């Protein structure tokens, strides 16, 4: 798994060895700009993969292709053996693909608790229930409190999002993704643009995410990348440049030249 080579096709069997996410030859162009070029990679269950690359390399684009915000020109992707690209965006979520947004996207006039509640109640099939008060669904509420605990937001559960500092809003963003119980979680720069002290909480939370979730982390902060990742995928101009362990990537001359060199 530590090389860039991949098996020719994703095995559809459900045994623990087959990748939970398999991406093959994804291509996308915006006019003349090719933002995704033959991107292929596998993601094992519980994997911790960091996705790095210079600004505009196509990292967010790749996430958008996987979640269905964008449609690829060609290529394929399977999630747990299912054809991911054939699913509608909300079906991909239900199939186990969760994400956070590089720019926070929350329900601003609602409380922190309600934000997570929306996600949990959707997953638990409660959001079509019309006749009982939301707070009487103690099963959903218990799950919401469990998630608030994980992202250390229990103390502000009753606050509206708009009253929260940005750093803690990032944690809500993370909580929303967790609430979906994803098999694969795509984190797009979860700590971007927040003060160091709060970034620390986000990082610690990311470190402590449940083991069985496979995570792709998009991140510019190399300290966080090296602390988090078991493997790193380097994207440059829409194409996969390298994939390897943090040590391998750190030692790779070309990566140094193209990526680390420019950021140092």
């Amino acid at each position: 798994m530590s090389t860039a080579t991949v098996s020719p096709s994703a095995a559809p069997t459900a045994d623990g060895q087959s990748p939970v996410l398999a991406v093959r030859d994804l291509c996308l162009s915006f006019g003349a700009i090719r933002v995704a070029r033959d991107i292929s990679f596998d993601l094992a269950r519980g994997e911790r993969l960091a996705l790095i690359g210079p600004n505009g390399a196509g990292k967010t684009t790749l996430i958008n292709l996987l979640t269905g915000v964008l449609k690829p020109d060609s290529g394929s992707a399977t999630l747990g053996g299912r054809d991911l690209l054939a699913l509608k965006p909300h079906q991909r979520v239900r199939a186990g693909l969760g994400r956070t947004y590089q720019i926070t996207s929350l329900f601003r006039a609602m409380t922190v608790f309600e934000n997570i509640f929306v996600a949990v109640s959707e997953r638990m099939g409660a959001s079509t229930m019309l006749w009982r008060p939301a707070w009487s669904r103690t099963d959903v509420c218990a799950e919401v409190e469990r998630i608030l605990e994980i992202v250390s937001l229990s103390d502000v559960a009753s606050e509206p999002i708009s009253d929260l500092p940005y750093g803690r809003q990032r944690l809500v963003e993370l909580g929303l993704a967790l609430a979906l119980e994803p098999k694969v979680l795509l984190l797009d720069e979860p700590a971007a643009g927040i003060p160091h002290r709060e970034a620390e909480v986000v990082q610690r939370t990311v470190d402590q995410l449940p083991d069985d979730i496979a995570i792709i982390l998009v991140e510019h902060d190399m300290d966080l990348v090296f602390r988090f990742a078991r493997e790193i995928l380097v994207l440059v101009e829409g194409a996969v440049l390298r994939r390897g362990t943090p040590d391998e990537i750190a030692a790779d001359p070309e990566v140094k030249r193209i990526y680390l060199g420019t950021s140092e």
Partner: protein
Amino acid sequence: MAEPNTLRGRFTQVEGPLWLLVPIYLAAVAYFYLMGNQLHLGMAVVNMIILALSIDFILGFAGINSLGQAALSGAGAYMAGFLPVYFGWAEPITGLLVAGLVGAVMAYVTGIIALRGGELTVLAMTIIVAAILYEFANSYQDITGGFDGLRGIDIDRVFGLFKFDLWGRTGFVYSVCVLFVVHIALRVIVNSPFGVMMRGLRENPVRMRALGTPVFHRLLIIYAIGGFVAGIAGGLQTQTHEFVSMEVFAFHVSATALTVVIIGGLGRLYGAFIGAVIYVVFQDVFAKMAPQYWYFWLGLLLVLVALFAHGGVVSLIDKAAARIGLAGRRAR
């Protein structure tokens, strides 16, 4: 695990406390006994509240922009007239339910097209649907009665006991009872998990989709529920007046109901109550003073609300209540 009571505090309080129901419906009782010669005005207010509730439900709670609510209420209004005239079905309560169903079906079917686009598309589509129905009613005057109205509507006694009388005594009580049922039902819905989901759709539909919500389908259901309530409002008007004309599809019906909700406060059920009362009183006072200028005063009121009471009059009441420590956190 926290108790349901503490849990309740974690949710935005979108409705006033339960005891508020008592003074509001007591006021209706008092009106009945004190203003016996003004019951038709009271009925108009109640009718307006129900129609405004239907808009508040879809726009204030779920963010569906509609300027064509008259299409839904009008469909209900005509159904309530067609039933006794063409089908010999004059029982009021079942008739009202059928009117509501027609409103719901109308919303669902037109929503399939109208709810596809962005906010402006929805706005334009709802206007167009109401305009088409208006022309329809105009083209088939032998069936609808056109401007002059549908003749021969004769509604049975309520529960076989209370005849719709000229003074509007039965009509008023019947209307208030219908309002009460609709109000309670909507109150239950906006406090339910479905209601929380609705507010999520209003705040951020894109994110809802990313949480696995089938957004379009949910909006359709919400629009249909709103259509049901609008259909009830229309049906009620037909039954209590024993009259319906193509005016029920007119643009000003939709615009008025929307104005009422904006004045009262979007996203709060009581906004519809307050807005309707203010609107009708305002109309009564200023239209008597200078009929040709009354829209000017209405416009001025809207401007004032936009400037000083963003969130409608109900938000002012919220602030006042919060100051004396009465209410919890307000919505929006």
